[in-house]
Each structure stands twice: as structure tokens, then as C-alpha cells.
């Protein structure tokens, strides 16, 4: 089909589909392909930040794919002998740290957010919009500034330590900032609303008469909760967990402000490779592996999202 006829069939429709489609292809698909391409090349010389993919050698065109960048994520080079061995490279450690914080944050958000969403869903219908707006309101003010506030709150001479010393719980200020504590508090604080909102959306649709029926039939509140409320809110739990887990893996700002030397996450490492070491191919390879790490949760999220959509249509 030639392009003129193609445009002629439904000019308006083609235009409406074409504009966002072309935009997404140019600014989302092409950049990703470039990322993949650079991740399989060598570091370039002084002028080019990376080596060309194709090169003419002896009159024939060679395509060179290098997988060193990927190997170097898992392989340690012994400085003395130059021997390579599988080991705990800084990259592998950064991935594991990222996964650790993402998992812990997801669990914390679920533990805090589930009862919270449940109680909002059971509150009077007239106050529910106000309660929800109160959850959303901090989301509209700067994320960066809210994280920054924790720096002052958790500092050695900060509010929390001063209150604890004043109350006599501790003698010396605790090291809260630049530790696991500040990382988890900051990440839970920022991502909790992402857990609460999808949980609320499923819990508010739950028919609470089912619980009454369970009580009438002799179930304890605890048993009724596990057998009825939790299974019926599964979609919300999964959606919320993925919405927290995925951005946590790539988090960049919170470890920079609240983390110490121990809490290096992969987002930061990608940045350093790119701008400090100027190693574009390795930064690209690290980013590609990062996508692989979040591909599984993304697929789970999409699967349940599609299911939800189908359920909504019925």
C-alpha cells in the first residue's frame, strides 16, 4: 500500500493514531535500541565515547558485538595476575542492595498501607474523599523537598535523636542518617501512597456483608480477614506492590540524600559510570540488566492489570 492511499483511507484516524505512535517510537523505542547497541560495543577513543558497531576491515564489513560489558558485571579482575573470576563486583553488590531495599520497602509499605487503606474504605462514605485527598496532597508537593526534610529530622543532632535523648531512651545520639534506617524510612515515606491508592480501590469495592456472613457462621475476625478480605483484595496488593517495587529498584535521589557509602544502589552506579568514568558502554549494559531485573514484576503487573480491565468491562 503506498503512503498516499494509506493516508487517504481515514485521514483523521491515521493522524490521531500516527502522532502519539510516532512520538513514542522516536523517544521511547529508538533510545532503547541505541542503549542496546552501545551496550555491546567497546569504549571509544578520546573523540567518540564508544566504538562503532560496524567496521570495514580488509574490504569487508564486520559487525562487532562485545559482551565484555555484561561479563564485567559479574567478573572480577584480579589486579595482580589479571586473572578473571566470578565474584562480588561493585555492580553485583549494587544490584543486590537495590533489590534488598526494594523488597523491604514493599513489605513495609504493605504492612503500613494495608490497614490504612482498609480503615479508609470502612470509614463513612462522606469523609472518604477528604481522607483520600489527604493521602494525595503530599504527592503534589515536591518529592525532593520531602526527602530532604528527613535529612534534618534524622540527623545526629536532629529532631528524632533530640527527642529520644530528652526522653531518656538513649544516652548518645543514634546514627540514623546515612544508614539502613534513613534509607527505609525515606523510601517507605515516598512510596507509601502508591501502595495505599490501589489497595483502597479494591477494598472499597469489597462487599463487607461477606465478612458478616463469615462471623455469623462462626469465623473469628482474624480467620475471616485471611479467608475473605485478603483473597478478594489480591489485585490491589499485587498492583500496589509492583508500583512500589519497580521505582524503588531504580531509585536515585533517596540513596544520594539519605544513604551512606554502604547504601549504593544501581541507579547511582549507572550515573557514575556515565558521568564520572565516562564508560558509556558499561553504563548502557548496567541499564539493560536493570531492565531485566524489573521485567518480571512488570509482566506480573501488566498481567493483573489486563485482568482488572477485563473484570471492569464485565
Amino acid at each position, binding site marked *: 500500500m503506498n503512503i498516499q492511499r494509506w493516508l487517504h483511507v481515514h485521514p483523521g484516524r491515521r493522524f490521531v493514531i500516527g502522532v502519539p505512535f510516532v512520538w*513514542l517510537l522516536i523517544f521511547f*523505542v529508538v533510545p532503547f535500541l541505541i542503549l542496546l547497541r552501545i551496550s555491546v560495543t567497546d569504549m571509544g577513543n578520546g573523540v567518540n565515547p564508544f566504538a562503532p558497531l560496524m567496521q570495514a576491515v580488509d574490504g569487508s564489513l564486520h559487525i562487532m558485538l562485545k559482551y565484555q560489558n555484561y561479563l564485567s558485571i559479574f567478573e572480577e579482575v584480579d589486579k595482580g595476575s589479571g586473572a578473571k573470576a566470578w565474584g562480588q563486583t561493585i555492580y553485583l553488590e549494587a544490584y543486590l542492595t537495590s533489590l534488598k531495599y526494594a523488597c523491604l520497602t514493599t513489605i513495609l509499605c504493605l504492612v*503500613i498501607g494495608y490497614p490504612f487503606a482498609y480503615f479508609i474504605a470502612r470509614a463513612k462514605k462522606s469523609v472518604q474523599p477528604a481522607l483520600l485527598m489527604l493521602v494525595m496532597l503530599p504527592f503534589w508537593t*515536591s518529592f525532593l*523537598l520531602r526527602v530532604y526534610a528527613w535529612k534534618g529530622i534524622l540527623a545526629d543532632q536532629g529532631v528524632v535523636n533530640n527527642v529520644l535523648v530528652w526522653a531518656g531512651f538513649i544516652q548518645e545520639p543514634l546514627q540514623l542518617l546515612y544508614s539502613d534506617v534513613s534509607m527505609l524510612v525515606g523510601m517507605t515515606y515516598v512510596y507509601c501512597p502508591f501502595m495505599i491508592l490501589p489497595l483502597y480501590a479494591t477494598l472499597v469495592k469489597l462487599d463487607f456483608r461477606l465478612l458478616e456472613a463469615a462471623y455469623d457462621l462462626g469465623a473469628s475476625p482474624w480467620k475471616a480477614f485471611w479467608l475473605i478480605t485478603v483473597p478478594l483484595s489480591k489485585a490491589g496488593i499485587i498492583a500496589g506492590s509492583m508500583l512500589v517495587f519497580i521505582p524503588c529498584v531504580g531509585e536515585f535521589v533517596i540513596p*544520594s540524600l539519605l544513604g551512606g557509602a554502604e547504601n549504593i544502589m544501581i541507579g547511582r552506579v549507572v550515573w557514575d559510570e556515565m558521568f564520572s568514568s565516562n564508560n558509556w558502554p558499561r553504563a548502557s549494559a548496567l541499564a539493560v540488566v536493570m531492565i531485566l531485573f524489573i521485567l518480571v514484576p512488570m509482566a506480573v*503487573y501488566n498481567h493483573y492489570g489486563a485482568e482488572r480491565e477485563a473484570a471492569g468491562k464485565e
Partner: protein
Amino acid sequence: MKTSSSQALLRLLQAHFGKLWLLVVYLFLYGPLLFLILFSFNSTRQDAVFTGFSTRWYEALLNDSRLVGGFFLSLKVAVITGTLSTILGTFAAFVLVRYQRFRGRSLFSGLVSAPLVMPEVIIGLSLLLLMVAVQHAIGWPERGATTIVLGHTLLGMAYATVVVAARLREMDRTIEEAAMDLGCRPLQVFFLVTLPNILPSLVAAWMLTFTLSFDDVVISEFLSGPGVTTLPQVIFGYARRGVNPSIYAAATILILTVSTGIIAYSILTMRAQRRRERDAQAAVLAEIRSVEENVGTA
């Protein structure tokens, strides 16, 4: 005696556990905001003790040319991003809701929502690589405000699509069909019927994407060039160096502006809703009355 009082306390806790939990989590969500507001008025650089009321950090803020310059750059970037994202998002929402069948639809719907779940670091890095490649080839765009806008719009469009598509799904299509039956051309239908109907969602999408852009630091860090720093970038730079109460002052201004705006917006929409309901009721009553009169005269 002691056991009974502790039992009473336990019962009290059980009865009000829900409210207590809500209260504690709201405190957790709002504590840092209150901290920022309180300590922006502190008279010293202290973080833990409020030593006295002063507005010196607000003066310092206004005299800080980097913060002020960053503010105006961010404002410009956010306005353009909000507008571009809303336009593109409306297109994409139309495609998602109205065009159920076309080649590449599943690819399209995947692409639209992908930026929502993609870590910003990857969006920033891959866009930077694209910009460098394009600049290498045609000498444009220079890294700076333009590239930041492009990056923010990629993310903003995804959010705008979600907001507009939700409204578009709810919309009553029969009024569009009525307009078409009365001879409107498709474009007229869009501008005279569809657009006024989805306008509130466009406003919401614009505000959301404006905020997103005004607040973003990661994509800006990747895409900005030398000498171009948005407000969040300036703040990020200061924040990594230590405590600076001028930033508390900036935060306070932002928090108060945003919360006033949102509260005013929700009161206005609630009022409009109530007025619409009242008007509808009045119309029904008038109708009933006229019917009654007609019956009476007959």
C-alpha cells in the same frame, strides 16, 4: 485493679484502633512537611531546636540568584511540558479508548504505559544517548531546556493519557452521535461536544504533568547541559552538601501554594457539582409544576 485498668485501656485501643492507625500514618505523611514549615522560620541554622522566629531564610532565598534562576527555568519547562504532554496524552487516550482495532494496537498500548513503570534513570540515560546521537548527526538540539522538555514530556504524556482516558471511557457517546446526526463534521463534534466534556480531565492532566516536570530531578540531571539547571537540580546540589534553611523556605512557599491551589480547586469543583445538582432539581420541579398546571387547566 491494675489488670482491669490495663484491660480497659486495651479495649479502648481495640475500639479505636482504626482511627489511631489513620492518625499515626497521617502524622508520618505530614510530619516532614510540618518540619519544613517550622524550621524555615528558625533564626539559626539549627535543625533540632527552634531558637526563635525569623524570616532571614526567606530573604536569603530571594537573594540567591541560582535558586531564583532555577525557579524561572523550571516554570518555563513545566508550562511547556504540561501543554505538550496534555496534547499528546489526549491523542493517545483517544487511540486507546476509541480505536479498538488497528495494526500495532497491542504494541501501542504497551508503549503508552511503559514510561510509567520504567525507572527514570533508564529513561534519562537512553534519551541522553538519543540526543547525543541526533546532535552528532544534525547539530541540534543543544543539551539544555529543549532536551529537558522532551524528556519530561515522554513521562508526562504517559500520565496525561491515563487521566484523559479515564474520563473518555466514562463519557456518554450518545451526545456525540446526536451531534453527528444533526450534521456536525467529525472535527466539529470534537471541538463542540467532546472537548468541553473532557475539559476537566485536561485541566487535571495539565496540572499533574506540570507538577511532575516542576519536581523532576533525575531526567533533568541526565539531559541538562552546562549552565542549565532547573530548580530541583539546584536544590539537589545544595541538599547533598548539607542543611540549608533557604531550601526549607522554598519548600514552605511551595507547600502553601500547592495546598491552597488544590483545596481551592476541590472546593470549586464541589460547589459546581452542587450547583449542577440544584439546577437539575429545579428544572425537574419546574417541569412537574407545569405538568400539574396543565392537568389543572384541563
